[in-house]
């Protein structure tokens, strides 16, 4: 069993709220540790939560266990590591493409660049590509998203917030 093999297998685990994104795309796998106990494989998957209270993390941990259950490990640990905190800068380019195809505008800004009061990200509409969009709410149906609407095609859409 190799680390790369495990990470590739964990690509099957997706975000329950945004099923097109794997946990690899999201950048929440910090590390995978493998060792032997009595000649048998043991594993510790270190993950980092997106937001402190994100309820998806429990579902994701269960998803990881289910994948690993089919791989003959004697022991499976899943550890949370908070520091350094997760940021959307960790999201893969292919993850961003998948988000857009799914109808969610991907994060566009580096997380270190803050926004001033009443300032909003200029986000392109993921449906028609128009730049004529407006923020409806900085908070959306899940912690990681905000709500926009497109003035061109008139459709509302979600934006995966820069974090």
């Amino acid at each position, binding site marked *: 069993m190799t680390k790369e093999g495990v990470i590739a297998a964990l690509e099957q685990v997706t975000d329950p709220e945004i099923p097109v994104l794997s946990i690899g795309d999201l950048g929440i796998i910090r590390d995978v540790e493998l060792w032997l106990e009595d000649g048998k494989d043991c594993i510790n998957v270190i993950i980092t*939560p997106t*937001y*402190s*209270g*994100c*309820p998806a993390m429990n579902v994701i941990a269960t998803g990881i266990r289910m994948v690993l259950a089919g791989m003959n490990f004697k022991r499976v640990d899943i550890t949370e*590591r*908070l*520091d*350094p*905190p*997760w*940021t959307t800068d960790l999201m893969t380019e292919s993850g961003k493409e998948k988000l857009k195809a799914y109808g969610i505008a991907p994060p566009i800004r580096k*997380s270190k660049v*803050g*926004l001033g*009061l*009443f300032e909003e990200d200029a986000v392109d509409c993921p449906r028609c590509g128009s730049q004529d969009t407006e923020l*409806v*709410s*900085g*908070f*959306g*149906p899940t*912690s990681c998203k905000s*709500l926009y609407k497109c003035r061109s095609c008139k459709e509302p859409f979600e934006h995966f917030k820069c*974090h």
Partner: protein
Amino acid sequence: MKNKLFYILEWADNTLILGQRLSEWCGHGPVLEQDIALTNIALDHLGCARNLYTYAAEIFNGMDAVDRSECFASVAFQRNVKEGHQADEDDLAFLRDAWDFRNVLLVEQPNTDWAYTVARAFLFDAFNYYYLTAMCNSVDERLAGIASKSLKEATYHLRWSSEWVIRLGDGTEESKTRIVEAIANLWPFTGELFTATEVDTFVEGLGVDFAALKPLWEQKVAEIFDEATLEVPTGVWMQSGGKTGTHSENLGFVLAEMQFMQRAYPNMEW
């Protein structure tokens, strides 16, 4: 170890109680977008509280039996200790009584109306932002990690509540009257944010210098109030007691609702 435990609980109880207060708006927000904003913010606070309670429970379980029996007055907690149960995050949230809670009085104040909710959020968020910034340098790596995680979220919270203070203050005659009243009534609870208890002074390096946060907070409040055409209250007598377990009657109502299920049906799960 007791001081470290209590220090963590001061922080954790602030976030749990404010999170619980904000979540009371769920389904009652003035518009859907703001209802969602409040529940999102409440969830961040709850997530921070969970991280802290998990750590606090580990510290508690590592203490000797005598110390453990002296930490909390609640009968439900005492019984668990006597029976040799290991405490967890849920026990700390659901089995302690009001006098075992160490949150500041500000966060337990009722929602009242939108202006009170916004004013309470802003006065706390401005404090929380600088508190978490300082906690990122804690000698305790686990606490520093929780702080750096929560700081990113607290930055959004402060932005949200600052914008609303400005909107209400520099809004209509009615919105201004209401936010002025809310600030006047909540102001006496802000002094406690910066007073160090005996617990706070015992955890040097691990905790923060509360007095040093005050000028930063004052500057932020002045900046936002100026933009909102609001006056900063002066010469107000300050309430205190929350950090040492002397609370207003409001906390009892918060806990009655929050703890009901665990008290009525101990160890129930869903």
